[in-house]
């Protein structure tokens, strides 16, 4: 993948396929580390399969390639970090990937706003939260909050709302100091 936002989009697909109704995405940039967390309340991973999920092409899903987690793990390790998976069957999964920000092989953050926009468009009934922290500056987004503001008569999938969400994420991430090519930050 060219950047972290694409990895996140890919990993969240796993959560969706696991039947998750709530997916929490967090990015914490502190000192030299950048940590990505994707937490869901999906079906979880069987304990005996935990060793296999990082194997390339291993998948329990139909029409899934089985490359999302292995590629993220590989990129984290290339950047001096690692990937950790905590999961409980029937409760959900937390995937954590650490990266050393200044590492020569570090991927850019990428357009995380587009990732969130596409997730919200594709799965408007899911509860997404996005949290990004750069040192002591924070930004967060919660689709339940957005839906409460919109009410029942305005669709969260509508073009104007999605454009707003895209711009709100982009602008606020620039303010808190998150950077990616083209962000203007």
């Amino acid at each position: 993948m060219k950047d972290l936002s694409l990895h996140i989009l890919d990993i969240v697909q796993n959560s969706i396929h696991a039947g998750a109704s709530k997916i929490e995405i967090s990015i914490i940039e502190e000192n030299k580390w950048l940590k990505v967390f994707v937490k869901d309340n999906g079906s979880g991973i069987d304990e005996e399969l935990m060793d296999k999920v990082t194997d390339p092409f291993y998948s329990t899903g139909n029409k899934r390639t089985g490359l999302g987690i292995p590629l993220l793990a590989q990129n984290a390790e290339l950047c001096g970090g690692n990937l950790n998976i905590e999961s409980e069957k029937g409760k959900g999964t937390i995937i954590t990937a650490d990266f050393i920000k200044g590492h020569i092989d570090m991927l850019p953050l990428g357009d995380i706003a587009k990732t969130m926009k596409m997730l919200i468009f594709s799965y408007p009934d899911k509860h997404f939260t996005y949290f990004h922290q750069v040192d002591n500056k924070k930004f967060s987004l919660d689709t339940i909050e957005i839906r409460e503001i919109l009410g029942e008569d305005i669709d969260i999938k509508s073009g104007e709302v999605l454009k707003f969400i895209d711009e709100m994420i982009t602008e606020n991430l620039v303010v808190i100091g998150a950077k990616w090519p083209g962000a203007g930050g």
Partner: protein
Amino acid sequence: MTKVKNLDDLRKMREQMKSKIRIRNNSENSENLIQIKVAMATCCIASGSRETMNFIVDELEKRNIEAVVTQTGCMGYCYAEPTVEVTLPGKEPVVFGFVNDKKADEIIEKYIKNGELIDGIIPVNYQSVD
């Protein structure tokens, strides 16, 4: 300092949007709507399918074309990603390969609007992708 958007701006926007609500209930008459499926597995995302889907979603809205746009898993055409399956009402699904913004624009303008077949169609291997 430039003002950044926040949820108060969304509240104000909502008031403006209320005055021009267009009720769309895709689920009731989805059979009569154009169905567009964008493959979004790992191979697809790595090849640019997020950008393709974003373009399609935005352009259909701008061009006022009603369609149901969804994601799918891997369609099996990893060599030709990004891939997009388009089903016009009453017609068989057609899968297009190597769909970047320019090809997506061509699909919308020529195939979706006029039913005109264009280059880049992948031969049929199966009925449709779930």
